[in-house]
């Protein structure tokens, strides 16, 4: 079971700001270990965020995103008390979903 994300969601005027810290190794597949073997690529490929059930952000990531990614974004149409649900899926098919309430 992948590590939980740390999510903060705040209503700032008419915009909702979401900040999420994800725990992931994000291996590019270009590194080699001490024995010279390539460390296989392992990275988050897609991120989906919904607010009160509606999709507010989708992202397709590649190997340029570093380890333990931090994502911060704002959107309109959200309200205090709404449930923000974030899901990521990586190239191994592992996924993690966490949620937070807009403060």
């Amino acid at each position, binding site marked *: 079971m992948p*590590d939980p994300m*740390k999510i903060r969601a705040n209503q700032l005027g008419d915009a909702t700001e979401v*900040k999420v*810290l994800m725990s992931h190794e994000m*291996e590019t597949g270009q590194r080699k270990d001490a024995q010279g073997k390539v460390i296989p690529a392992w990275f988050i490929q897609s991120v989906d965020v919904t607010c009160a059930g509606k999709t507010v952000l989708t992202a397709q990531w590649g190997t340029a995103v570093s*380890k*333990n990614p*931090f994502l911060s974004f704002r959107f309109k149409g959200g309200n205090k008390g709404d449930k923000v649900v974030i899901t990521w899926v990586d190239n191994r098919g592992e996924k993690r979903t966490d949620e937070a309430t807009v403060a």
Partner: protein
Amino acid sequence: MARFSTAAVVAALLVFLPGAPQAQAQASDTAAQIQEYRDALADGNPAELWDARGEVMWKEARGPKKVSLAQCDLGMGAGVVKNAYAHLPRYFADTGRVMDLETRLIHCMTTLQGISDADAHKILFGGPGKRSDVEALAAYVTSQSQGAVMDVSLADPHVRRMYALGEKIFFYRGGSHDFACATCHGEENKRIRLQDLPDLTTKSGAQKAYTTWPAYRVSQGELRTMQWRLNDCFRQQRFPDLVFGSPASIALTTYLAYNANGAVYAGPGLKR
């Protein structure tokens, strides 16, 4: 008459070195900009992930004895975590020695939870595919000291002895390169490549350095503690391996921590 002469000399120097003040202004602009960048990055400090993991670990019943660390005494009473880091290292009567956070955590893991000494020391510094319990617990405990004023006491003679030893080690030149800690950390405005070196012999230098460790070290991709920092310094000095939790490591930590007294603890930090 003497003051007038000095002013004349200074004025003459400024005339002959027109570039110097400008270059200095540029350097401090860059430093200010880098600090702005660091402040912006601090928002998503991955150290929070270790803090979260450490909090779960602290409260979880673990080890052969299946107990949590709720009775772990970090110097302020059993289970008291808040602000504990601001008063470490300190002397512990139950072990008869001065201990820092990491050695105290391992002590609690082995005595309270029954985890073997070997297991507790198996993974001290995490890496890809391997996690360090001590690093996660240290992140949690230090986050609970954020905002506390550093206040390490030298009242106990054991701690005083450690401080004196730490000071001696700090200035001791050795190894193949004849380096002491002071070689890199004993002067103002020095850097190695692009890494600024804090002058740990000054109050402000020691304060700024000590209050930002443990920290998420981006280049490591891991949260690192003072034990790691000292171990890595010894490596860079081409010294023999610094044993984790050794009296030498605790002496140095005591020296640096006491010198940082009065500063507000700002960890866990974020470093390159």
